[in-house]
């Protein structure tokens, strides 16, 4: 691929991009050590408390508060970045520039400006709407996303709640977000959002099953639901005559890995209501689907929820299939971020290339194609595990 001839501004921005990437790598190595002690917060806190006799009862809430604030900080920063990144990626895919003015180089502060704008916007509750359902819907849509981040391993030792039923917990809690969307649909009292809400409910329910079933072969191989143990199984490399050929990621398992990866990817795209499955807020049919009547802060909550789920799904894909956190030089958590943002780029790429499926074709696709194939996948893993 010959390098396309770039004009002056492209060369300058490529240089700046390279600078930021190398600075980021340098800082990450420096912080790496502090990060490693993330899960040992409990231990260093208790040693600190013992020294100057703070009552131990105070410790658990304190460490929880610290971990929650770190997680909230991470989610909001990553969502801010992803919103800006989506606008830039979609712009360049369509031969245009995307935000360029706010905040200097390539409009990096665009999302912050949007967030402030949304905060200042008036919060309208339509007359027909049922006020309480209308107000609660964004909260119910966003909170499960935030809960699931607790069980996501960001790297060795970087997990705030290392549950041994990690996957089950994440799938169960993320299923709750559908409730928020249906409440938003019915709550805003307008026909379009009602249609959008009902469609979203039908879609999420029917895509939950193939998503869970596609993960079953991995559980069969690893033998435990613990996310960290799944990640650890995938460290190391397959050697053929001593040369490390392929990393031991699940995606490279002969047939099983690829099928499971594809089904999981497709159904998590559908789970987060993104094209080609975004029938819930289909611009051309239902104006804006379930969040037509939302404005100001409530709308930004829905926006936040959507991108939080996108990062959650791509984080899960990294942990389950791409060996989250295992990699040669860089510390584990920067590997995790790199892989997750690669999968997020895949989500964005889908969105700006594919048209939208019709409602009943979408249901048919899941019940008649994804589901049977995930059963077949489990069957094949069964055979492989026998021999």
């Amino acid at each position, binding site marked *: *691929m010959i390098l396309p001839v770039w*004009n002056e501004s492209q060369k300058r921005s490529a240089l700046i991009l390279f600078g930021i990437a190398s600075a980021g790598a340098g800082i990450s190595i420096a912080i790496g050590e502090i990060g490693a002690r993330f899960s040992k917060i409990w231990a260093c806190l208790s040693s600190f408390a013992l020294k100057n006799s703070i009552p131990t009862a105070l410790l658990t809430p304190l460490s929880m508060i610290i971990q929650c604030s770190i997680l909230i900080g991470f989610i909001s920063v990553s969502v801010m970045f992803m919103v800006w990144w989506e606008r830039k*990626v979609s712009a*360049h*895919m369509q031969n*245009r520039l995307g935000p360029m003015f706010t905040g200097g180089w390539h409009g990096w502060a665009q999302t912050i400006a949007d967030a402030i704008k949304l905060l200042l916007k008036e919060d309208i509750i339509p007359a027909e709407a049922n006020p309480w359902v209308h107000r609660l819907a964004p909260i119910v849509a966003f909170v499960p996303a935030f809960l699931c981040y607790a069980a996501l391993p960001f790297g060795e030792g970087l997990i705030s709640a290392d549950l041994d039923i990690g996957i089950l917990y994440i799938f169960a809690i993320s299923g709750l977000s559908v409730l928020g969307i249906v409440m938003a649909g019915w709550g805003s009292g307008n026909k379009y959002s009602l249609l959008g809400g009902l469609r979203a409910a039908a879609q999420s329910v029917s895509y939950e099953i193939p998503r869970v079933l596609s993960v079953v072969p991995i559980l069969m191989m690893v033998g435990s639901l613990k996310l960290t143990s799944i990640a650890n199984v995938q460290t190391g490399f397959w050697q053929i005559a001593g040369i490390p050929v392929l990393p031991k990621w699940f995606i490279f398992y002969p047939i099983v890995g690829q099928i499971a990866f594809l089904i999981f990817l497709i159904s998590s795209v559908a789970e987060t209501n993104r094209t080609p499955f975004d029938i819930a807020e289909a611009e051309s049919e239902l104006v804006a689907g379930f969040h037509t009547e939302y404005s100001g802060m409530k709308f930004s909550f829905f926006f936040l929820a959507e991108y939080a789920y996108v990062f959650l799904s791509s984080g899960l894909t990294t942990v389950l299939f791409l060996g989250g956190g295992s990699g040669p030089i860089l510390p584990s958590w920067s590997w995790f971020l790199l892989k997750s943002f690669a999968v997020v780029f895949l989500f964005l*790429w889908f969105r700006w290339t594919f048209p939208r499926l019709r409602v009943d074709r979408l249901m048919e696709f899941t019940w008649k194609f994804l589901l049977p194939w995930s059963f077949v996948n489990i069957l094949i893993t069964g055979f492989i595990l026998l021999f």
Partner: protein
Amino acid sequence: MFNYFKTIYKVGKALIQGMMVTWKSFWQPAVTVQFPDEKLNTPERFRGALTFDKETCTACNLCIKACPTACISLEPAVDPATKKRIAKVSWYQIDFGKCNYCRLCEEACPTKPIKSVRHTHQYEWGMLERKEMLVKWERMIPSTEPLTSTNMKPI
């Protein structure tokens, strides 16, 4: 059974090809012109806002007859001494709220070599009230300093 897998393969290949198109244009330089900083140059025949040259106009009313939306109005000048109409114009007004920018007035204007009502290359023009759309050129005979239009910058 065989063509079941063939369709899956065809569908997959077509989807991937579609993604290659967006991937290729992801690396191509963008086509947008950042308007306030970079501006496209308007071609020679560009039909921008109208301008009027009050010295050469002979008040022959041809442009009023040619205009489809009748947005031009003028009044011929009267020589104060002899009280007879002279081939000059006393005031000339264009209502830009109705103007279609269709160039029929410029084609109808008989003045040589430069037409007295013609299109300029100016397209950046905003106004706050409807009154500002009525642009009036006055040509008082006794006054000395040249009068330009009320709000129109001389081009």
